């Protein structure tokens, strides 16, 4: 299964969000654990299955004056095995 999330940093935590979930954690490692826990807990990820989570950075949280110089922060992919 595939899932898409929006990711940004709110000053203290990394946050991911889509229409079904909002999760946050101070580091990406902890965030990934939260995502994994959600996938397993919600039953979206069955045993033996692999989920691909695509995270798109929300550019609107980068100061507007910087966006003219660089239009991309990062997108990341997380693979979670069930």
């Amino acid at each position, binding site marked *: 299964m595939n899932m898409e999330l929006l990711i940004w940093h709110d000053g203290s935590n990394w946050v991911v969000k889509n229409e079904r979930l909002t999760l946050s954690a101070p580091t990406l490692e902890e965030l990934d654990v939260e995502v994994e826990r959600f996938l397993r807990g919600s039953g979206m990820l069955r045993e033996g299955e692999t989920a691909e989570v695509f995270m798109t950075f929300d550019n609107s949280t*980068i100061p507007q004056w910087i966006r003219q110089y660089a239009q991309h922060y990062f997108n990341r992919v997380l693979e979670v095995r069930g």
Partner: protein
Amino acid sequence: MEEKHDESRKEAASGSLTGTALEAEDVLAGAEPWEPVETKLVVWSLLIAAAALIIGLLVVPTSILHTP
């Protein structure tokens, strides 16, 4: 959460040169010890630069090797 997201955006749109609401204290402090993989990164970068320099000087027609 949504409030903080909005806050990040509002801060971002302000056009100010520094992100005043952002936490900056850990940017300068807490240097990790130097690791061998860093040496590798630096050395490889310089080695590729040296190789590119030699090839470049030989290949590029305007390089100093071809200038009378």
